[in-house]
């Protein structure tokens, strides 16, 4: 009886989770009357708006990842090495993006950096792009910070740093040649999460009025019939690919990890 109940629960969960996906997938294939086809996907791919916004978001995601790594890795390194007492504080700070709604953050940005402020970032497209990237980096911060922090916890940071220094390495070399390669897997999983977040993000891009993929998704949802379903399926596939890449990266890392 108990077994049946637990199987029933699992079955319900699977249906609850996958049925909408299956429905959406099925719907996205029905653009041509009477038969299944990839017309909706073809239509999406052929849409220059799609190409532009998707390309923009991919580029922003990559820039955000680089920016995030450049900010987070040295910071975590320094805090762990020299200011370990600040770690609880860092934990708290990096959790804030999870509890402060993005809309609050972006209104704060607009207030701080509007055209009549001391640093009018929103005055130019490039400045706004930069602001958007910073916003994305903030959204990804909780994940990036935790990934890198866990990665650094696994190595003997202080001794490795000193060993490298005694061999003639300066801070940049220590970070680039010793620290980063040893936390690469952690950084990669942080990077894929960042990518998944940035690709689907709507609030920041919409309010800063940048041509990103998130607003395009919403626009398409309101103006087309079959294409939004195709887009949703594609976004899902992309996110899942990111998750799988994280798994793969973790597996790949076994090569250099201590077995003890």
């Amino acid at each position, binding site marked *: 009886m108990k077994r049946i109940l637990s199987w029933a629960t699992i079955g319900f969960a699977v249906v609850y989770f996958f049925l909408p996906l299956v429905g959406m997938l099925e719907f996205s294939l029905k653009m041509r009357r009477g038969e299944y086809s990839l017309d909706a996907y073809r239509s999406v791919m052929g849409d220059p708006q799609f190409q532009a916004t998707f390309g923009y978001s991919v580029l922003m995601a990559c820039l955000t990842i680089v920016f995030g790594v450049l900010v987070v890795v040295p910071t975590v390194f320094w805090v762990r090495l020299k200011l370990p007492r600040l770690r609880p504080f860092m934990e708290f700070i990096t959790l804030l993006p999870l509890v402060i709604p993005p809309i609050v953050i972006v209104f704060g940005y607009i207030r701080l950096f509007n055209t009549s402020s001391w640093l009018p970032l929103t005055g130019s497209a490039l400045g706004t792009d930069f602001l958007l990237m910073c916003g994305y980096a903030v959204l990804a911060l909780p994940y990036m910070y935790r990934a890198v922090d866990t990665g650094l916890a696994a*190595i*003997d940071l202080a*001794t*490795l740093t*000193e*060993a*490298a*220094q*005694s*061999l*003639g*390495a*300066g801070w940049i*070399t220590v970070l680039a*040649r*010793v620290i980063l*390669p*040893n936390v*690469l897997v952690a950084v990669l999983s942080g990077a894929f999460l960042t990518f998944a977040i940035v690709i689907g993000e709507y609030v920041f891009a919409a309010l800063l009025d940048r041509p990103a993929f998130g607003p395009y998704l919403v626009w398409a949802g309101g103006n087309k019939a079959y294409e939004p379903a195709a887009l949703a399926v594609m976004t899902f596939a992309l996110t899942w690919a990111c998750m799988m890449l994280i798994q793969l990266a973790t597996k790949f890392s076994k*090569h*250099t*990890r*201590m*077995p*003890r």
Partner: protein
Amino acid sequence: MAYLDLSGLQKSFGANQVVKSFDLGVAKGEFVSLLGPSGCGKTTVLRMVAGFETPTAGAIRIDGQDVTGQRPNQRNIGMVFQAYALFPNLTVAQNVGFGLKIAGVSAKETADRVAEMLALIGLPEMGARYPFQLSGGQQQRVALARALAPRPRVLLLDEPLSALDAKIRVSLRSEIRDIQRKLGITTIFVTHDQEEALSMSDRVVVMNGGRADQVGAPFEIYNHPATRFVAQFVGTLNTLDAVVTNAARGEVTVQGQPLQLGQAIAAGQGATVGLALRPEVVHLEADTALISRGDFALAARIASVDFLGAVIRVKAQTAAGVIALDLFNRPDAPPPPVGAEMALRFRGQDVIVLG
């Protein structure tokens, strides 16, 4: 001036003064050990030399050049850590070549030097392995090769053998010493293991509470300890009380029996001084009649006998306390049984007078 010269080094962490005016000169090619109990500041001294800690006062000079203010990566000093600290993402060869790569040495030259270093440490075939594929002893040898590859001016080792098991520890001792001799590199070796310090070093610095109590050759340190601390920390020691009868001529009485010491004593007539005896200078005699004949001898009852192989450690109860002594193993003479009544003898010249 010595090749490596530490003068008046001090280090405080907050109100805690860890190193108090430390002076040491190390000649070029010399192997010097810092020996002392846990927390006496050995590592701190070494880290100041390496540049990882800034001295509160004092100066560090290498080859006449003041390096006190230099950053660690400018000093060209090799360091070997207790925890090996090999870079886990690099192969053995890449680890050894790390310092050369940073120094901008060409790939060809680096490869040659790495091969030379791996041959020196006896691991010529291991270049392609990763650190986690090596045993602890092999990892530590790679760490040594990595430190030596860029031809540092000074080599520092902080308890490099402590994490290894006993057998490898002993064999690596002589290996490190051989390599050090071969390269003629000026070396400071930190340890709290006196056997290590005595067996490996040209000179030993015995540290106590942030100071160097005595600096000397192992023979000197062991046989002529300068302070009570050095006498007690290095080797096993028996202590006895004696009453001074003639300070200038070094005459005392122990348990009422006169004893002529090899040196004058800095104490007044009738004062009590502490005498110390190494276990190997005390002899056992079966003939207890010695005691009544007037030669110096103490009546003793054997309290315990530990057979250690080449050496037999005996503890004997005397009126002056328990005295430990070492006998050499002899197949034709079994050790005395526990409880046997015997006589203990030693020569006045072999006694260390504790200050």
